[in-house]
């Protein structure tokens, strides 16, 4: 794309879909001020989509939810879609999922409903260039930071398209059916009897429809607790399996609160979180307990 004049470029939102947000790698380092990290729920697919169009991982993409979205570009740009597989069209013609494609000024890119998973990532050469808030362009739905979810007619600025597309790297592993996520015990494993661990390990947990970017809500047998002692608020990590009084774990995703007062039985390995972010309501998640050492 070198040689083109660097005219300001934009995406116009034609169809916002159910919930489409701007996401990047989030705003780490500010949890002590009560600012959640946020960022792409499936960071691996976000990074892969960016790489396909020649962007750094930190560039902002669009994260869709289940039903896709449609945007029109006013400049020639490379696009790519990764994450939850879905039909993709540009200018009315079908284009490949998981590979870069060139879109001409005035054409509309359409992401259809996902065929599996929850969240697709649409990357554009140059990235979505909405202003940063506290060092990130990510929409944090819990704290209300970053741009509002996409609405019809909204216009998003694009950054300068620098690099060429790059389809040489290996794609990330596809979505697993019935994924088994690694869980390391703690920090509050001591609050739970062996029976709770056995249930956590043996049960196929159902993803509830109330799941969102804050956390995946799981249905299954209530996990028993050893003591009923209240726990003062403590810091939370992404992947934490927090167990509220009803015994049904909540698996924290990108927009999770910085602190919480329910005990965390174990934490899902960050490398397995993309599977949690792509687990559709009604699907099953299983856990494998692995040791942790430092």
């Amino acid at each position, binding site marked *: 794309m070198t040689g083109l004049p660097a005219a300001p470029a934009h995406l116009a939102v034609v169809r916002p879909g159910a919930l489409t947000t701007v996401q990047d790698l989030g705003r*780490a*380092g*500010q*949890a*002590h*001020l*009560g*600012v959640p*990290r946020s960022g792409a729920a499936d960071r691996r697919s976000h990074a892969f989509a960016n790489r396909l169009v020649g962007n750094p991982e930190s560039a902002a993409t669009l994260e869709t939810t289940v039903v896709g979205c449609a945007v029109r570009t006013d400049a020639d740009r490379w696009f790519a879609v990764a994450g939850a597989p879905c039909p993709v069209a540009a200018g009315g013609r079908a284009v490949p999922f998981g590979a870069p494609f060139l879109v001409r000024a005035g054409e509309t890119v359409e992401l259809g409903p996902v065929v599996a998973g929850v969240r697709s990532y649409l990357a554009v050469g140059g990235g979505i260039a909405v202003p940063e*808030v*506290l060092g990130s362009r990510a929409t944090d739905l819990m*704290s*209300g*930071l970053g741009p509002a979810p996409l609405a019809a007619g909204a216009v998003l600025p694009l950054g300068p398209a620098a690099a060429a597309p790059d389809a040489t790297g290996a794609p990330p592993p596809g979505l697993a059916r019935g994924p088994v996520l690694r869980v*390391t*015990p*703690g*920090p*509050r494993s001591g609050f739970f009897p062996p029976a709770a661990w056995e249930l956590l390990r043996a049960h196929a947990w159902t993803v509830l429809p109330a799941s969102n970017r804050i956390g995946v809500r799981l249905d299954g047998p209530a996990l028993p607790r050893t003591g009923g002692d209240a726990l*003062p*608020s*403590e*810091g*939370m*990590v*992404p*992947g*934490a399996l927090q167990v509220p009084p009803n015994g049904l774990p909540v698996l924290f995703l990108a927009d999770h*609160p*910085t*602190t919480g007062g329910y005990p*965390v039985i174990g*934490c*899902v*390995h*960050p*490398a397995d979180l993309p599977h949690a972010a792509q687990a559709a309501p009604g699907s099953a998640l299983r856990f494998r307990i692995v040791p*942790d050492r*430092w």
Partner: protein
Amino acid sequence: MNLLAAGPFGILAELASAAEVRALDAALQGIRADEPDIEDVVPAARTVLVTFRQSAAGAKARSRIAALLPTLRPAADGGGAPGPLVELPIRYDGPDLAEVAELCGRSAREVAERHSGTEFTVAFCGFAPGFGYLTGLPEELQVPRRAEPRTSVPAGAVGLGGEYCGVYPRSSPGGWQIIGTTDAVLFDIARTPAALLAPGTRVRFREADT
């Protein structure tokens, strides 16, 4: 100090008191410049969470810090220099002031005077960006949270909950007993720093002249 695992890139250090939390937090801030693989240091009521970058270097830093943490002896005085002092104007006009006064066996005026005569310290932040849990609340003003949380508490509401006082940075649901209102802006993304209160900040409420 009790060290607990919080995922492969996290350590939760459990401490005996809020003062020890303050001290460990201060000690960790002191080494952060030399530890670029530390991502977040999150003090809370009785714990400090340290998280690391999700990489091989982050995992190494976690092992190193896990060995180092027990040697970071919390100083008896809470450690470090006192934090900056922030004065928040307040009107004691909260909908729960009368109930708080009754629970405390004092008049509303006495509650206001005792509250505005107290120097608080931000023990930690959480719940929402810019929400500080203020410690130092005199025991006679410590009241339980409301049995029925409100679905909406306005920005600037000053509340009491257990051993803490706090100010709602923006309108949100909330269960604390609201005793007053401040016009101070607790969190403003257009300001640097965005958060008025950070762990260690000292806070005084000054009653607005009426």
